[in-house]
C-alpha cells in the first residue's frame, strides 16, 4: 500500500524504464520503438502471438542481447550492471526446460537461488549465511512445503514450475520476470499460480512482468496488460483490454473453442493495426 501512495505522488523512481528500444536478432527486426515504464508493485502481463518479441523484450531487460538500440534502465542502472545483481529474479520459459535426468531435489534447486558472487565459494558447509532460512521461506511461499526432498524429475509440471519460481524468490529479488510460466499446466495449478503471483505484488511489494500467450488467464489476474507485436500496440489496465467476444462480434468472426486464444491474438493484431 505504501508503494501505491508513493506512485501516486510520483516521488518514486520507476523500477523499469525503456526508451525507444529496437532489437534485431540475426538480421531480423524483432522489436521496434518500444517504450515502457513500470513502477513498483505493478503486475504487468505481456501478451502477443508467437514470434512477436515477448521473450526478446525480457532478454533485453535482462541485458543478454548482443545488438540493440535504445535505452533500458532498471533501478536507474543499465541491465546486467553490478548494482542489479540479486535484484532481478528470472523464471525462464517453461520449467520443462530443466533437465529431467538430473537428480536434484526441490531443496537443492531453490538453494541455487541463494548463491551469489559473494557466497559462491563457501568453504564451510555449516556456515550458510541465512541461506537455509531463505530457501525454507521461498518454498513455503509457493506452497511446496513437504515436497522439499522430492526429485524435480518426479514431480508434476505445476510443482516444477513452482519450484523454479521459488528459486527466483530465494534470490530475494524485488523485480521478477517470468517467461511463459503457464505452459503445460492444468487449469487448477495455473489459477493457483496466478493467485500466488498476484499476492507477491500486493502483499510483498514485488514487481512482476509476466509473458504469456494465455490471454484469458492473464487478463483476469494482472493489473496492466501490454499487447506486443514488434512494438507495443496496447498498454493499459487489464480491464480495458478488449476481450475476444467483443472483438469477434465487431468483426463478425465465429471461432472454434480450441483456437480461441490464437484467434484472439491474431484479431487483436489486425484491429490495432487498423487503428
Amino acid at each position, binding site marked *: 500500500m505504501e508503494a501505491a501512495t508513493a506512485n501516486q505522488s510520483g516521488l518514486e523512481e520507476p523500477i523499469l524504464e525503456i526508451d525507444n528500444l529496437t532489437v534485431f536478432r540475426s538480421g531480423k527486426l524483432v522489436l521496434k520503438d518500444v517504450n515502457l515504464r513500470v513502477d513498483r508493485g505493478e503486475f504487468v502481463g505481456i501478451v502477443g502471438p508467437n514470434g512477436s518479441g515477448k521473450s526478446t523484450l525480457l532478454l533485453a531487460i535482462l541485458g543478454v542481447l548482443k545488438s540493440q538500440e535504445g535505452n533500458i534502465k532498471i533501478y536507474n542502472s543499465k541491465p*546486467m550492471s553490478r548494482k*542489479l545483481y540479486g535484484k532481478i529474479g528470472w523464471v*525462464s520459459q517453461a520449467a520443462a526446460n*530443466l*533437465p529431467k*535426468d538430473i537428480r536434484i531435489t526441490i531443496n537443492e*534447486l531453490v*538453494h541455487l537461488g541463494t548463491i551469489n558472487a559473494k557466497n559462491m*565459494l563457501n568453504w564451510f558447509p555449516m556456515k550458510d549465511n541465512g541461506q537455509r532460512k531463505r530457501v525454507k521461506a521461498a518454498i513455503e511461499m509457493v506452497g511446496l512445503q513437504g515436497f522439499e526432498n522430492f526429485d524435480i524429475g518426479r514431480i508434476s509440471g505445476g510443482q516444477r514450475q513452482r519450484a523454479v519460481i521459488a528459486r527466483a524468490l530465494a534470490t530475494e529479488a524485488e523485480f521478477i520476470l517470468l517467461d511463459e510460466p503457464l505452459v503445460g499446466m492444468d487449469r487448477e495449478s495455473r489459477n493457483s499460480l496466478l493467485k500466488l503471483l498476484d499476492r507477491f505484488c500486493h502483499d510483498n511489494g514485488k514487481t512482476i512482468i509476466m509473458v504469456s500467450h494465455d490471454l484469458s488467464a492473464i487478463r483476469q489476474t494482472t493489473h496492466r496488460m501490454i499487447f506486443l507485436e514488434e512494438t507495443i500496440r496496447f498498454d493499459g489496465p487489464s480491464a480495458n483490454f478488449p476481450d475476444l467476444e467483443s472483438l469477434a462480434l465487431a468483426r463478425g468472426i465465429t471461432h472454434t473453442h480450441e483456437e480461441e486464444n490464437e484467434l484472439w491474438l491474431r484479431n487483436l493484431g489486425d484491429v490495432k493495426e487498423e487503428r
Partner: protein
Amino acid sequence: MLPELGVILADIIFPIFEYISPYVPGEFFPNFFNGETQALQRSLLGSLMVTIIAGFLGSFLLVRNLAMIGDGLAHVAFGGVIIGIILGASTPLWYAMICSIIASISIYELQSREILTGDASIAIFMTGMLAFGLVILKLSGRAITTDIHSYLFGSQLLIDWENLNLISYMSLVSLIGLFTLRHALLAITIDPLSARVQGLPVRKIGLMFSIIIAIVVVSMVKIVGALLVTALLVTPAATAQLIGRSFKSCVFWTQIFGFVSVMIGLYMSSEHGTGTGSSIALTAAIIFVIIGLLSGVSKTIKLGKM
C-alpha cells in the same frame, strides 16, 4: 620446492594398508596392502585418489552433459605424452597436462560461443591431438614402445614416487577446486541465465571447471590409461543416477560405486592377470548393468502394486 605430497600421503596411508592386509582376500591381492612391494602400495594409493576425484568430477560432468569430454581430453593427453617422450621428458605427464588444459579451454570457448555445439569440438581436439602425437612419433623415427603403450591402457605398476607426487597434487588441487565451486557449478549448469542475473561469473566458473577436468583426466591417464578414463569418470556417476534421489546422494553413491569397481578390478587383475585398467572398467560397467536391472525391476514392482 614443493613438499613431496605423495610421500607424505604414503607415510600416513601405507600403515593403514598394512594394518588391514591380513583381512584382504586372495593370493596375490594382499601384496597391494602388505608393503612387501612398495610399487603395489603406490599403485593402490594412486588408484584410490584418482577414483575419489573422478567420482566427484563425474557427477558434475553428467549434469553438465559432458560425459564424453573425459575421453576426448584423455586422447589429447596421450598425444601430449608422446610429445613429452620425444622431447625426452622424465615426467611426460606435464606435457599431457599443458596440452589437455589448452584443449579443454578451447572446447569450452567453442561451445559457449556456440561456434561448435555438442560433442563436435571434443571430437576435433581428440583426434587432432592424437594424430599430431602419432605423426611426430613416426617423424622422430620411433615406434610405440611399452612406455607409450602403458599410457594407453594404464600401468599402475610403473608409478614411481615422482608420478605419485604429481598425481597427489593434481588430485588435491582439483578436489579443492571442485569443492569450492560446487554450488556455483550446479547453479550455472541448471540455469545459466539465472546464474548470470544473480551475479555469478558464469564464464570464469566455466573456465575453471575446464581446467579442473583437464587436470583430473591427466592424473588418470597414467593409472587407468587414456582409453579407459571414461570408465571411472562417468560409469560410477551414471550408476549413481539410477538410485540417487538428490544431487548430494548421487555424489555419495558415485564414491561407493567407484571404490567397489576399483577394488574388484584390482582383485581380478592381480588374481587372474586380466589387466588393471580393463578390469576396473569392466567391473564398473557390470555394476551399472546390475543396478540398472535391479532398479528397473523395483520400479516395475512398484508400478504393479499401484
